[in-house]
């Protein structure tokens, strides 16, 4: 039955040429016709390629996408995603020079600043405490400034804010959350700092971590590290494993047997554990992780390439080529190499996925990167300590790992089906 499935027309009466080309069709053709032929697998490859591309772009220039630097302490600690800290903030007119409470200090004898608050709300108490504390400090300074604000109480938030707009009060002190609700109605006002001088911040898309860094930014910056580790180690493995495989397959003999024995033993060994051992000795640094992970995957490339080389070597046309006197190098290059490339491409994408997972695992265990770097594994380890209170610290970095790894794996899956449905080796 198989010979019916793809027949070449030999005497095409009105035969269309694309059928004749069917067998000789190249990679690009296959890709384009793929949607029709390969069904879901084609979609896998396309979607995951787009995702991978997106990740690469983010990795190259995280600064373009991340609102903050990963190390910057941008807000209160343990802020839930999208939440605002319940702080008392200073609200001033847009053009005001006042940025913090201290700015309201005036020389002895000058008009005391008037500050609006809402009645029956604890903010006035906070204001008093803060003002007094600042005042004490100021008293000890030679500049002769004092901070003793006059507190105007208003019945409602809107009235208090209106007073600032009209200039009756120089500033208002209200709760952040309440301000968020109303601030659209008062476009001429802005938030200055909180009473305690912290930058008023909130509304971080994914929240903040245990020391106040923005999780979203760290997620984006983490992409760079993950992809660097993934690609570098995979490329290293490739450039070591593929030539070794080609050589071993082509040359055979004792060299092949010995190398294969070593590679098989390495291959059978738990990857993570070997990586742990290597980094343990070399010490934590990005380069060492890359080397450790690279070592893990050399056997995979080696085996596949060697296997393919052996198969191709036995095919008759190699003998034919040799009988014509083609040089060994030519044989290698022209016949064996092109057959090997599709398999290597598949392995590479799965390899990157795995390398990222292993790298994250290593840093999660604290054995990889120095803890100051913005890496997903490190963030997860940190988050574990606060799992009871700050669920967002572990959810998002892990999600990032999942998405990146998934993209590469899907790509590998799809490519496997397209290039060679029988190929099942990892």
């Amino acid at each position, binding site marked *: *039955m198989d010979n*019916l*499935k793809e*027949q070449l*027309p*030999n*005497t095409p*009466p009105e*035969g269309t040429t694309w*059928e004749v080309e069917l067998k000789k069709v190249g990679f690009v053709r296959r890709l384009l016709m793929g949607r029709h032929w390969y069904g879901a697998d084609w979609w896998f490859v396309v979607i995951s390629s787009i995702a991978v591309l997106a990740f690469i772009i983010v990795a190259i220039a995280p600064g373009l996408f991340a609102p903050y630097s990963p190390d910057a302490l941008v807000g209160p600690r343990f802020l839930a995603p999208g939440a605002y800290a319940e702080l008392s903030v200073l609200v001033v007119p847009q053009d005001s020079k006042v940025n913090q409470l201290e700015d309201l200090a005036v020389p002895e004898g000058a008009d005391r600043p008037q500050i609006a608050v809402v009645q029956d709300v604890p903010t006035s108490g906070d204001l008093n405490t803060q003002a007094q504390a600042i005042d004490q400090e100021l008293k000890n300074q030679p500049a002769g400034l004092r901070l003793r604000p006059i507190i105007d109480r208003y019945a409602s938030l809107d009235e208090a804010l209106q007073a600032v707009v009209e200039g009756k009060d120089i500033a208002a002190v209200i709760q952040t959350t309440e301000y968020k609700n109303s601030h659209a109605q008062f476009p001429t006002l802005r938030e200055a700092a909180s009473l305690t001088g912290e930058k008023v911040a909130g509304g971080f898309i994914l929240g903040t971590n245990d020391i106040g860094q923005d999780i979203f930014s760290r997620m984006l910056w983490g992409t760079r590290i993950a992809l660097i580790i993934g690609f570098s180690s995979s490329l290293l493995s490739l450039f070591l494993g593929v030539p070794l495989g080609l050589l071993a397959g082509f040359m055979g003999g004792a060299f092949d047997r010995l190398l294969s024995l070593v590679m098989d033993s390495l291959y059978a060994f738990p990857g993570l554990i070997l990586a742990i051992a290597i980094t343990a000795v070399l010490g934590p640094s990005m380069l060492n992780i890359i080397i450790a992970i690279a070592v893990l995957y050399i056997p995979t490339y080696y085996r596949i390439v060697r296997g393919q080389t052996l198969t191709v070597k036995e095919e008759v046309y190699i003998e034919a080529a040799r009988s014509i006197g083609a040089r060994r190098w030519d044989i290698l290059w022209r016949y064996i190499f092109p057959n090997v490339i599709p398999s290597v491409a598949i392995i590479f994408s799965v390899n990157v996925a795995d390398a990222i997972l292993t790298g994250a695992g290593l840093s999660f265990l604290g054995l990889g990167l120095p803890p100051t770097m913005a890496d997903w594994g490190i963030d997860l380890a940190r988050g574990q300590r606060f799992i009871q209170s700050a669920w967002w610290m572990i959810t998002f970095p892990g999600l990032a790992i999942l998405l990146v790894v998934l993209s590469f794996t899907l790509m590998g899956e799809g490519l496997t089906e397209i290039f060679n449905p029988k190929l099942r080796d990892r």
Partner: protein
Amino acid sequence: MSDDILYSVHNLSVDYKTRGGAVRAVDNVSLDIRRGEILGLVGESGCGKSTFGKALLRLHDGPASIPEGELWFDGRDLMKLSINEMPAIRGAELGMVFQDPMTSLNPVQSIMEHLTETIQAHEPKVSNAAARARAEELVERLGIRHERLKEYPHQMSGGMRQRVMISLALALRAKLVIADEPTTSLDVIVEAKFLDLLKELREEFGLTILLITHNIGVVAEICDRVAVMYAAKMVEVGTAEEVFAQPKHPYTQGLLKSVPNINMGEGELYKMGGEPPSLLHPPTGCRFHPRCPAAMEICSRIEPTFESVAGDHMAACWLYQKQTDSQASTRKKANLG
């Protein structure tokens, strides 16, 4: 339909979905199989004979489908049954023997298990012991010692395996056995023994056999009637004497001429020109016309109908058609029965 016809196929077509489009592997083929006969179905590889054979059991792989046709087996049209009713008929009334007995047997199952499973699949009430007894009795008749039943397929020779296949087909006394290239993987001596066995079985069990093969020699040896297929179409049917002595269709003639014969001299080997056509875009009119030494103008335009040439000897060729141009252009689905 007369009583001596066991299986009457009317206008059967089988389509295959391929990347290039739908291929019609069997195109409007009709055939009668008479009770107790050995009917040979010949043709080149890819002409559709295997597909035809499988379709008789409504067995097909994923991409294949049967868009039209009637399968009148023993008084009922199998096409009218739901596909779930077919397993009861397969093996019990219709049997099939495949080309390669090594791959047709489950490598991790013993021969005995193959047999008892088949028996119990159709007669669930049969106990294990009874099934085993029946299996032993069955294979004795076919020349297999029952000590060998506990062995696995890879431990047996090719000829022995093929006997196992027949015994599986006969386990439930099937009325019609379809043998798809059964001797292609056997050497000549084993093949001869196998063919003798088939003849004996026909005598003893009243078996009807459809023998599908590309080997004319085999057909000449044991077949009562012969059917010839070319490019998914039936081109000639007749008794063995008729077809061998007076082949009507040019393709049959060419086929017979190509058989090497020990009395030939050097350089006499006849080769038919051309190659089998693509079924994706078959030739217009008669499919054989590009290679036919007797092709006429009409052959490239209109397809000849399959009709009687001399009594029960039928062929599809313009050389014998009695219709005129205009009559032939109205394509009627002939009812051959």
